[in-house]
């Protein structure tokens, strides 16, 4: 009887402790939504805690999910900073007035592409890293099939790759939407859709996550996986037999971004994090965490494995236009109707 009661008391105490976390509240805290991979999120937050003494509560979610959450929480925000994840949803959040304008003193230290993106978003977001779109292919699988190594976007629609290309679904993945927008900007809308229809015949599966095709190429589930190049690099560094291709026609890129959520409960700490995250030493953490994007701070060391933008033909990506909700919905609807619904 006593032990039962003791158990009940312990349970009750546990319940209280869970419900009243404020009791032991530190003077400084910050809630961060993190949209890069876990391995990068954690050391980032740990480093910030060490540097400032501010306790960080972090959730890792994909940028789409985070966008959903911020939108749902709009009238009563829970998070303070949204760090990482492809730029489009950040732009969209800026457009929907979900994020706060903030000009960091460190803007001067950043690459031009990052500053330009910040301007386009009225300084409601800022680039923290960039990654170019491309694809990787599995070398043994390619050789087994005796296919010539692909170099361009155009190679992927060859019949040899029938059922051997994997890419994410632009409805669920920012990466795939970047591909859609890139092809449209590269070729013009009508030829772009002809290309996408042709590509559709070679696509074996539209995954839901943007990085999944890199993994599929690494394991050989698919010969080719269209992803951001840094995702492919991660696989290659892990020892996967893949080659990485920056397509010859030129390619689009994403700018991984960071925004302060409007109505942040810890605004001062959010700004501190914002400034800190743009510093060279904070941006060096990515490489240590096997994330091979290009950092936005000019002084940050570039990981040797990272695909250098100098060697890649980049298009002049119009983030404002292709990131807008109206354009996005139009493109996606057209893609759904003309490409996804077509026969293979």
């Amino acid at each position: 009887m006593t032990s039962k009661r003791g158990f009940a008391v312990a349970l009750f105490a546990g319940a209280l402790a869970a419900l009243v976390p404020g009791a032991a509240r530190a003077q400084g805290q910050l809630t961060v939504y993190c949209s890069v991979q876990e391995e990068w999120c954690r050391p980032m937050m740990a480093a910030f805690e060490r540097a400032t003494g501010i306790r960080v509560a972090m959730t890792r979610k994909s940028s789409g999910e985070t966008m959903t959450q911020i939108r749902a929480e709009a009238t009563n925000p829970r998070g303070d900073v949204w760090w990482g994840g492809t730029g489009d949803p950040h732009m969209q959040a800026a457009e929907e007035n979900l994020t706060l304008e903030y000009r960091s003193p460190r803007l001067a230290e950043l690459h031009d592409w990052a500053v330009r993106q910040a301007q386009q978003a009225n300084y409601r977001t800022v680039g923290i890293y960039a990654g170019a779109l491309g694809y990787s292919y599995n070398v043994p699988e390619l050789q087994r099939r005796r296919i010539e190594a692909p170099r361009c976007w155009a190679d992927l629609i060859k019949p040899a790759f029938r059922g051997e290309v994997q890419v994410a679904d632009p409805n669920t993945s920012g990466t795939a939407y970047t591909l859609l927008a890139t092809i449209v900007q590269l070729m013009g809308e009508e030829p772009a859709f002809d290309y996408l229809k042709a590509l559709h015949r070679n696509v074996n599966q539209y995954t839901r996550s943007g990085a999944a095709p890199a993994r599929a190429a690494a394991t050989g589930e698919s010969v080719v996986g269209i992803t951001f190049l840094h995702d492919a690099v991660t696989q290659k560094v892990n020892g996967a037999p893949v080659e990485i291709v920056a397509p010859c026609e030129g390619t689009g890129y994403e700018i991984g971004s960071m925004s302060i959520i409007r109505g942040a409960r810890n605004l001062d700490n959010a700004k501190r994090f914002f400034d800190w995250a743009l510093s060279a030493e904070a941006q060096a953490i990515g490489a240590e965490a096997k994330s091979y994007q290009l950092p936005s701070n000019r002084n940050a060391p570039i990981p040797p494995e990272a695909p250098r933008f100098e060697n890649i033909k980049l298009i002049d990506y119009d983030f404002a236009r292709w990131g807008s909700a109206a354009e996005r919905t139009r493109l996606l609807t057209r893609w759904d109707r003309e490409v996804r619904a077509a026969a293979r």
Partner: protein
Amino acid sequence: MGALSLARIALACAAFGLLIPPWYGLESGFASWPGGEAAPLAVLLAGGAAWWLWPVPLILLASAPSLLAHRAEGRLLIACGAGVIAWVFLQGWAIGLPGTVWSIAAPFVGDASQPALGWGATFLLTGAVGLLSAGLAAQGRFNGDAFVSFLVVGSAALLIAFVFAPLLTILSAAAVEDGRIAPEAMLARLTAHEAWSLACVTSSLGCGVVWNTLALATLTGVLSTLLGLAFALLSARANLHLGGAFRALAILPLITPPFVVSLSLIVLFGRTGMVTEALSALFGIPRSRWIYGLPGVLLAQLLAFTPIAYLLLEGAVRQIAPSLEEAASTMGARRFTVFRTVTWPLLRPGLAAAFLLGFVESLSDFGNPLVLGGDFDVLATRIFFAIAGARHDPGRAAALALLLLGLTFGAFALQTAWLGKRRYVTVTGKGDAGVPSPLPRGLAIACGAVAFPWMAFTAIVYAIIMLGAFVHDIGRSDMTFTWRHYITAFEVEWFQGLVFRGAAWDSLFTTIEVAAISAPLTAGLGILLAWLLARQAFPGRRTLEFLAMLSFAIPGTVVGVSYIMAFNVPPLELTGTSLILIICFVFRNLPVGVRGGIAALAQIDRSLDEASATMGGGAVATLRRVILPLMRPAIIAALAYSFVHAMTAVSAVIFLVSARHNLATVYIVGRVEAGEIALAIAYSSVLILIMLAVVLGIDKLVGRAQIGRRAPAGAMQTAPVPVTA
């Protein structure tokens, strides 16, 4: 309990809520108490803030004089209780965080704003519910029993707030476009091409998502029933002594996070999977991607749901009185004829129940289609991506959710219609002296040919899960032994005390905490509701029962979306707290507790309650000293069920986790999404071990006799397992 004493306790509770805990904000803490953001209402009012809440203490005061004079005036108490509840919610809706929400209130309060209700308000509202119930009891409702009255009114309030209201929220979202009500948009969404397209019949295009869902659910229902039947016949009628193995087989999927099986299937049958490679190397069978899509999802669901069908059918087989079969054989029927003419027809209701269970499980499964679906979309995943995808469209999500709800309700209606006609065979307590007739030989061989390979297959699938956690990368067949994944997840460091460095600790602690808190709440509320529904007669009983069972039919994805839509703004703001996770689990798992409770109560003769009553035992004493001790097995089963399900659920909580309160399953889904299958597998294996320990511990505690064959089989029959996903 008399109305007067309840009214007094309720008034005290309301007064406490008025005077002590912070009025606003569930997580505001006591740092600035009794001022600042932790101020109780009394302090706020005294300071001139929130003056629109003055009616609340005044109404409460109005109920006090007669209570102090030892009188419980029904009408007055009802008016006071209802008045306080109505006023608190009306002002809460009218004046929100961003300011005055209802323009009608603007001239009176100006541009006032207030955060969401907190613990003070919770106590006050509880007190108000108490006053209301005491008033009803004083008027002679609920046989004048204030305790019963409080339970009914209180649980109805909870069910309306946390089951019914969120559902209404999401339904109304389906009819809203660009912020206004648009029935034509709703109609368009409900009849959308993406849902109903029949293109796959005539061309190579994919069909509508409704057809996909239906096809998958039907296949899963039929095949899991057949497999389950093979196992049930073997274990009940063939003298193979396989009880232990079958039990293990039955328990494993119950404690496995729903998508883990999918990971293992990819490792085995993916295009570079082990089996695929072997077949290709040995026989030159071309390696294909068949696992991604309908076949893969079907296989994963069969692995997950067959054991449930088995448990259900095993009970059904054992319930067939051997004397019936003996009667048939004494009339000269041969074994197979006996089986065909007696056993099989008696099994049919069980088969129907098993089919419908598999069907409903499949409808609401989210994890497996997410991981293995490929291009094959079902409603559950489509809803998720309509909310979380790149194209955020809550209206479309809500409409799809309506379609899914329609399918589930349809299945349940079918089940009710079927089971309503069935005459339940009750165990009379008189031993049936007969010996069950063994299976006809041909049938036994057929069952064995299906069951044993399937068991071996299940064993391999689980072996992969365990193996994958200890090797570098099982997906790429890199089989070097490593502790790496466990270290990533569960690293512990000694640095001025124990530091939990591993990536998984936070979510694991939260998960265990949330599960451990929600399980007793679920069991408690479930058993109390069962007792109300089975033992008390009161107006609205059927409505209460419907509300209590409703959440069972709502797929998790729908629940998650509806909660985040309903509980993000004052006056009820719960998002981002661990409370919302607890509430979500309590109300999702509640129906199982209720059904288990009702089934257990059906075994307890009503005259026991009445005997206690005639000896002067009130409702409370009877419940505590007679009913609850007799329901111990049901209570423990409900505890175990809700604990395990709180640890394995994904679909609802994926919307509800927050920075501070993340859950293990959601974390694992994230790892899968990022392609870190090994880490996901390592974490899953730990979860499985924890739940195994819990289930076995309970098994030990209650004794095999109860949790073994009878309890789960019986419980499952009445309380079909899980809509986990």
